[in-house]
């Protein structure tokens, strides 16, 4: 007879899927995190001192890593020293129990650990072995190393930011990265996606090795710029901007406004109260509007500065004008929409404190994802086994 909890666990998308994660990078840890959110049993095999991510900023005031908390919630932790015989035996045991291995061990260290693709395949032919490295595991730069800022620029998006208002205000500043680990998250999501595709194919052909590169993933999500190059345009942050629309400062905050279609333009004119400048017959032509974008933005800025954000976005959405407030993290955490959808759930941190942590950026409407979570203390599995 199964307990209620077990029955629930069996119904999750990845119930029964066992993942072994060796991660020092955000990309590999995020891959494991996504699989854990979907119900896989994810074991982080950490060095005796713990993953370096346990110390990665931003930190909570007691010194615990908020980044690690976000990345590790829902996983289990097992410590093993890969240089010791017992640590190697533990690695071997966990590999034998796993369906998927997520590994970001640098290439030069893999042979000594028997973690080359050939060595893993020989011992575990049905294992899906996913390598996640900054520049991938093959190619002339496979041994290059990179942090987020390097990889966002190696993949092309870094050079193209910021656009619009930020660039207009600070034209001489260096390009600007996206907050946090955007590139690493793309690499991790791509790794999790490819891991599940390879797992899907196991019955037909057994396990296989999958080589994921964070640089490739950044380029992949930035594919439109390569497409534009093929069309004859080399994009640049100075020119990659919407001709009108973009970021506006309202009375008490910032707004994003973007009208791409004719009907949205008409609605925008209504939102602005049918000002005299917008009655210009030439502005009925979208190409003319693009040509006179700076002039239009000047008028919109002047209007925005006189109105509160909430009034603007409420009325805009009523009229069908795509507009959104640039919300602060606290507003996201406490947002009505997020509450209604249960985007955040309480989780117990390694310190024992409770925080709200984002469950997953997708919902499974027939079998809801697990909401209870905890951040595993280092080596909790061994300690549980010994008590």
């Amino acid at each position: 007879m199964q307990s209620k909890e077990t029955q629930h666990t069996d119904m999750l998308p990845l119930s029964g899927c066992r993942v072994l994660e060796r991660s020092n990078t955000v990309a590999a840890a995020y891959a494991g995190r996504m699989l854990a959110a979907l119900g896989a049993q994810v074991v982080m095999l950490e060095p005796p001192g713990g993953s370096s991510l346990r110390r990665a900023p931003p930190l909570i005031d007691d010194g615990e890593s908020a980044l690690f908390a976000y990345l590790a919630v829902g996983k289990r932790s097992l410590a093993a020293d890969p240089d010791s015989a017992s640590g190697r035996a533990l690695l071997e045991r966990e590999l034998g129990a796993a369906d998927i291995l997520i590994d970001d061990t640098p290439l030069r260290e893999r042979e000594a650990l028997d973690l080359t693709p050939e060595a893993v395949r020989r011992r575990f032919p049905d294992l899906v072995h996913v390598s996640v490295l900054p520049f991938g595991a093959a190619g002339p730069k496979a041994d290059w190393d990179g942090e987020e800022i390097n990889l966002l620029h190696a993949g092309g998006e870094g050079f193209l930011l910021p656009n619009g208002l930020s660039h207009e205000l600070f034209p001489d500043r260096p390009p600007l990265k996206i907050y946090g680990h955007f590139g690493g998250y793309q690499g991790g999501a791509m790794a999790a996606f490819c891991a599940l595709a390879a797992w899907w194919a196991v019955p037909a052909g057994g396990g296989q090795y999958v080589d994921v590169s964070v640089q490739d993933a950044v380029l992949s999500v930035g594919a439109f710029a390569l497409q534009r190059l093929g069309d004859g345009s080399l994009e640049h942050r100075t020119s990659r901007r919407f001709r009108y629309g973009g970021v506006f400062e309202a009375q008490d905050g910032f707004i994003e406004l973007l009208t791409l279609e004719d009907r949205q333009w008409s609605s925008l004119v209504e939102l602005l109260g049918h000002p005299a400048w917008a009655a210009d017959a030439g502005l009925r032509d979208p190409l003319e509007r693009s040509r006179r974008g700076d002039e239009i933005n000047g008028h919109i800025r002047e209007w925005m500065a006189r109105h509160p954000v909430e009034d603007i976005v409420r009325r805009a959405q009523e009229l069908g004008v795509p507009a959104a407030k640039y919300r602060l993290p606290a507003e996201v955490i406490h947002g009505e929409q997020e509450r209604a959808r249960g985007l955040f759930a309480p989780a117990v941190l390694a310190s024992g404190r409770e925080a709200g942590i984002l469950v997953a950026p997708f919902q499974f409407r027939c079998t809801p994802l697990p909401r209870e979570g905890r951040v595993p203390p280092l080596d909790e599995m061994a300690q549980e086994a010994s008590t």
Partner: protein
Amino acid sequence: MSQDYPHSPSPDSRPAQTPAQSQSPSRALRAPLAGVRIADFTIHAAGPFCTHLLSQLGAECIKIESLTRPDAFRKPHAVYGRMSAATFDQVSANKLSVRLNLKQPEAVALAKRIVALSDVAAESFRPGVMKRLGLSFDELCEARRDLVLLSLSSCGQSGPDSHFAGYAPLFGAWGGLGWMSGYSDGPPVEMRHVMDHAAGVHAALATMAALNQRRRTGQAQHVDLAAREVASAMIGDALVLASLGITPERPGNADLAMAPHGVYPTAQPDRWLTLAIRDDEQWRSLTRVLGQEDDDARYATASARVAHRADLDRLVTHWLATRDAESTAEQLQQAGVCAHVSWTMQDIASDPHLQARGAVTTVQAPGIPARLAVGAPARFGATDQVGIRRLTPALGQDEDYVFGELLGLDSAQRADLEARGVIL
């Protein structure tokens, strides 16, 4: 033509000729998702990127549009200076195309028949549209009881904002990513296509989880992805802080633990070098490669360097002012330092590493001169059958296969449906 498509190409189809097809036949296994079929109702960027990824891994993707409601790439896009339809559209590559005017009940019935033969249906309409069309999850499950339906939208299928429409910059604004990105003393920054496509990657991941779940349980699933929640997932660490009442900092190009860390000018105009110095050893390597002294006590430890970040940035900027970006990056990498040039798309297009990996690939087809595209999202050890197999489909080019072979409609029936605007 790939072996993954179980039919002959129609005369106007455009099989891609990619380097992948000429690789060694020893890795002969089929692509991981060969045999998976997708009925694809998605439009614009985020949803089509999801199904494009699935198709790159071998899924057969049937794109359903109509002459009256064609996808965006088939129209001019003045905002981007494109004055006619795209001749190549990355996210529609690999897809088969059929026309169905979903305002007609008979077209809806045909769409359901395609869904009945598919493992996955994917849509990216505003919530409520599929139901109005008669294609709700429950109705589609009547056609295929173990269907995986992916619904990708701005704000999700539920909640008070579910009816809000938006584009990538709005997803970033709603989700908090836009606010957290920006110069510390500047306004928030708008996200571009990478935000759409990030939603698409997460949708592909969730769809694969649902397919694996279906194999185990035999049950249908409705995956509900809100693009703004993907934007929130990109600031998951900052949201942990916010939940504890802590206001997260907007760091710009700085890092809270690493310095130097940033984007620095070099000898060439608009040629920037990115640097991330993790520890003292890398700091010493940096100074050695740049031929500088490292005896300043202010920079002796990581915490000291972070504390004197602004001074350090000025110093590194001075050091790099006469350096060639690309050769300096190579020297630093050889010394174990995380460095890379801020690359333009032209740099990426000509990079041997990305080409060797197949991340950048050359595609061509009749009427389309050779051009670059983004190739397979990863390298699979057991197969070389992943990647782009054919280019942008002409509207309705695969109806012989889909309507004729799959649905069994004869030419008279199809002509009648066309005459009555069902197939349009």
